[in-house]
């Protein structure tokens, strides 16, 4: 059974441990700006919303990439960017309707969540259980799926 990140914004206190863990594990620095998971702060409502790639089935990022720099990791199901192949064209950043691939100016490549090879650091670092890594069936990704289905092909076909 493949697993997914389950995010419960109601439990998030905005401590940013996930961003620090992500940037440290992936980029070697404690720098939220380099994190692939972002916590959005709705000041007016005192609400925090952690947000990252859902590894969606449509994988627009992967299909739009002109040079096959994004591939599916068989074990985790993550869509993973290969830095040595990515040319930094940024087409994936506009193709993903969730806005979860970002350009990294300092490397000239893009970055996105790769589920850390199946053991995501953000989930381990989150002290409140707002981010957990669970069996894909439990995550209730329906809302995201609806958003995805609305994006280009009306019905999702079975292929």
């Amino acid at each position, binding site marked *: 059974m493949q697993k997914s990140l389950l995010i419960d914004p109601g439990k998030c206190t905005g401590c940013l441990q996930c961003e620090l863990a992500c940037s440290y594990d992936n980029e070697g620095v404690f720098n939220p700006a380099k994190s692939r998971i972002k916590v959005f702060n709705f000041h007016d409502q005192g609400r925090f919303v952690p947000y990252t790639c859902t590894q969606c089935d449509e994988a627009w990022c992967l299909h739009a990439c002109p040079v096959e720099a994004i591939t599916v990791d068989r074990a985790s199901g993550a869509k993973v960017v290969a830095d040595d192949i990515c040319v930094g064209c*940024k087409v994936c950043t506009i*193709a993903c309707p969730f806005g979860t691939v970002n350009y990294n100016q300092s490397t000239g490549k893009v970055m996105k969540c790769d589920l850390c090879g199946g053991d995501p650091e953000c989930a381990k670092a989150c002290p409140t259980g707002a981010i957990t890594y669970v069996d894909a069936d439990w995550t209730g990704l329906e809302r995201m799926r609806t958003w995805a289905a609305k994006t280009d092909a009306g019905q999702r*076909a079975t292929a």
Partner: protein
Amino acid sequence: MKYVIAGAGPAGVIAAETLRKADPEGSVLMIGDEPEPPYARMAIPYLLAGDIGEKGTYLRKSKNHYKDLRIDYLQDRVKKVSAKQREIVLDGGGRRAFDALLIATGATPIKPRVPGLDLPGVHHCWTLADARAIAKRAKKGADVVLMGAGFIGCIILESLLSRGVTLTVVEMAERMVPRMMNDKAAAMLKRWCAAKGVAVKTGTKVTKIEKSGRGLTVHLDRGKPVAASLVVVAAGVKSNVGFLDGSGVKVKQGVVVDDRLQSSAPGIFAAGDVAEGPDFSGGWSVHAIQPTAADHGRIAALNMAGHPARYKGSLAMNVLDTAGLISASFGRWDGVKGGDFAEAADKAAYRYIRLAFDGDRLIGALALGLTDHVGVIRGLIQTGVALGDWKQKLMSDPHRVMDAYLARAYA
């Protein structure tokens, strides 16, 4: 089922792979007329910049990719299509029958009617062969004239600059990238280019190119002629539909297709730069961009294999890196009648954003210097989510698009 695909660019290759998944038993024949393995034109700028070699432009990296998927790849040109006989004729002489055919033959650069465009040293930047020719002449310090500052022109601009040439850009329209930017954004881009040492002449036409000594002289309708050892022509593209004359397939700008990517001839589909398909923003358009080629290829193939999938229409969208200044445009950034705009500009920092609304829905956007979460703009436009009170928030601060998406569609 016998599937035939004419054209082996991104649209053709993605269609072939999708067909294989959707119909494991069918035979898939993909025909391409270029000598190299299927490659991405989009990667050419990075080849010219020296970031990658030619192999880095190939669409698929594994050597036996097509063989492993039982996709027959034939290097030849499709000369003729007959909808009635359900067969194609090849340049090499053979014929191939099909049950379903995909036309994915892409586009060709337009050669404006300007004397001298056939001279040695004048090139398009469209194929790997073009790239090799350009690389030979675009040496450090060489004088280069780029004719056309449209979307493709501006992408090439970046890679020419990185080769250390002295660059003059000549654009007929009054502003750079006229189809993807308004005056304000284009003026910032022009100022940025000037600061990087590029001479940008907008509102100027090339009238004639002449041989002079070992180089070329480029004559303009305003100002002094410019000397060049290389002229790169990027003056727009047109769909490759010539071989369809008499085929029974309806053609306008491109092959006209419905929301299943099927042409006027049942069983014949089209995808990518050659297809004139449903435009998300209304009507039918040729959107000669990579994401459209990818979406078309996938959805056409599903329908060819009998898995009905309706296409909601392609969204005109581009992202451009012009010597470090990143810009993006989506959909109807120019707005619609009676719609509102939200705008914020910081000229000194080269930052700009403009959102276009129809009622409380986002229909287009234009941004300079924005890279984080830009994709969400596509999502907001294509899902047509009602922004409600968030529209007012965006009117006062258009930079909050990501917040608007999270609030209205996610959490």
